[in-house]
């Protein structure tokens, strides 16, 4: 294992320290670990908090800042953070109007954020928690833990962060987050594995001529192992996976602040169709260079053009990664006027910046 690290146990903390040293807009707390906006708490806005395993940088710590997240809780590598991190972080950034957790749908993340939600509620803080489950590589939610939260998370954090900045209240932020989730789909593929520092060896073995199609951002096996092929073919397969995905209905749990309990909610992501406007992200899993992403983007744009889907905004780069894994993911989020407006609003974070 060759990485630019010091002690394996210090990796997450040192990365946080480096980010805080480099960016005046963010600060860190180490016991427990979280990152927060230097100007938080802000009394006039809902606090948006996310978190998840480390190894996906810049997500989530890199998205803390004006117009995006108020706080982020990094777990150990590929491991959900713990409830005490979420609780402390939420209390740090809550300015009064409440806290919205944006949670990627993994068993660990959900269980930990659920606990934190309950604890926060017990402390009398208004809290809501919205899931991201956009990975179409996972087909059903009946026989699995449900679709994984992947690329749509980045867009949700940007859009909901801007809405909070604009003064949306907690329910409005939660409604918008749910809408973004139900408008988003992603699919990814890996060329190589990555190495979790504490593990020291590749998370999975993959042949010199193989790719993992439908891979998760922790290197979870995807839909299939297949022979490596051209960027065009891979892009077509990823985009087909997204465009041919039908209406997807599942039951999610959301927090009921009045009852102080969880309630089941049936939500549906409508299939994408001709005429839709979309925000797309072509994302590197970490080790794939920008140049290759543009080859993918080219084909993606051609397919969308042919299918009558209009790309209105785009992001090409490494935003939700899997350490140094080579591979890419495509995310497409159907965007209405509200979402486009907040997408274009100013943002100033270590990992995403424009308009300011």
């Amino acid at each position, binding site marked *: 294992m060759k990485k630019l690290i010091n002690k394996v146990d210090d990796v997450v903390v040192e990365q946080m320290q480096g980010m805080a040293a480099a960016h005046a807009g963010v600060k860190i707390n180490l016991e427990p670990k979280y990152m927060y906006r230097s100007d938080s708490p802000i009394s006039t806005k809902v606090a948006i908090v996310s978190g998840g395993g480390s190894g996906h940088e810049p997500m989530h710590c890199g998205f803390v800042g004006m117009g995006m997240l108020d706080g982020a809780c990094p777990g150990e590598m590929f491991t959900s953070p713990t*409830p005490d991190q979420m609780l402390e972080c939420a209390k740090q950034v809550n300015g009064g109007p409440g806290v919205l957790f944006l949670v990627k749908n993994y068993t*660990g993340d959900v269980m930990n954020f659920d606990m934190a939600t309950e604890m926060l509620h017990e402390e009398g803080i208004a809290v809501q928690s919205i899931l991201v489950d956009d990975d179409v590589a996972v087909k059903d939610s009946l026989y699995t833990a449900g679709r994984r939260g992947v690329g749509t998370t980045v867009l949700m954090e940007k859009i909901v962060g801007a809405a909070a900045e604009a003064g949306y209240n907690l329910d409005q932020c939660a409604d918008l987050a749910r809408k973004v989730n139900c408008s988003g789909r992603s699919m990814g593929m890996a060329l190589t594995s990555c190495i979790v520092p504490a*593990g020291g060896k590749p998370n999975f073995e993959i042949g010199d001529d193989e790719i993992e199609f439908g891979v998760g951002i922790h290197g979870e096996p995807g839909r299939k192992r297949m022979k490596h092929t051209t960027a065009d073919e891979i892009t077509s397969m990823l985009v087909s996976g997204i465009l041919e995905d039908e209406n997807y209905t599942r039951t999610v749990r959301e927090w009921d602040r009045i009852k102080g309990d969880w309630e089941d909610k049936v939500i549906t992501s409508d299939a994408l169709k001709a005429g839709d406007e979309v925000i797309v992200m072509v994302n590197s899993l970490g080790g794939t260079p920008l140049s290759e992403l543009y080859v993918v983007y080219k084909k993606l744009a051609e397919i969308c053009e042919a299918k009558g889907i209009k790309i209105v905004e785009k992001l090409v780069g490494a935003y939700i990664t899997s350490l140094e894994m080579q591979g890419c993911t495509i995310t497409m989020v159907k965007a209405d006027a509200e979402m486009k407006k907040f997408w274009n609003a100013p943002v100033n974070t270590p990992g995403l910046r424009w308009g300011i």
Partner: protein
Amino acid sequence: MMNVISQVSINEWLKEIAVVMRQNKDYLSQLDAAIGDADHGINMDRGFQKVLIKTETFADQDIGAMLKNTGMTLISSVGGASGPLYGKFFMQMGMALMGKMELNLEDLSTGISKGLDGVKGIGKASVGDKTMVDVWTPVVESLSESVNQKDTLEIASDKMVIAADKGLKSTINMIARKGRASYLGERSIGHQDPGATSSCFIVNILQGIIVGKK
């Protein structure tokens, strides 16, 4: 050989879990690599190293408090799926055994049964989903059977280990329906579940302490 499990033995149990998790860190992560994200051993080791440190401060506490603190330590140090799951397991087991300085077979049976309830309450898994529930369920069944049959603690613990082992092996041919392995669908068949494996270690260590091995 013992008729009751002393508070000291429970402390011993927790310490020994930490040792075994460290020894099997790579093995458990390797199992997780096949059907998950290769960190189960890392997670268990991180959590139980924290517990190991705590066992000193627990030393005078009753069994319930000790186990509850173990659960809370796991929750705040492990993360992932196994953090809340094992956290709830030990917390609920501890809550059921509050104030006790020793456990008889019935206590043990109740404690572990409540622990399993905790796991199922948060994780919503059933037998056959290829999780740690496939180990703890037969363990609970075996212990309650032993209570009915008035087995000695030693015999009960031997039976418990056999049940755990059978449960563990049964995960190999299952299709995972919960947790990260569920994404694999059919491709999860043939692999032993890492969480069931760590659970089986925990059961085995308990039996070793009861029968005075070690």
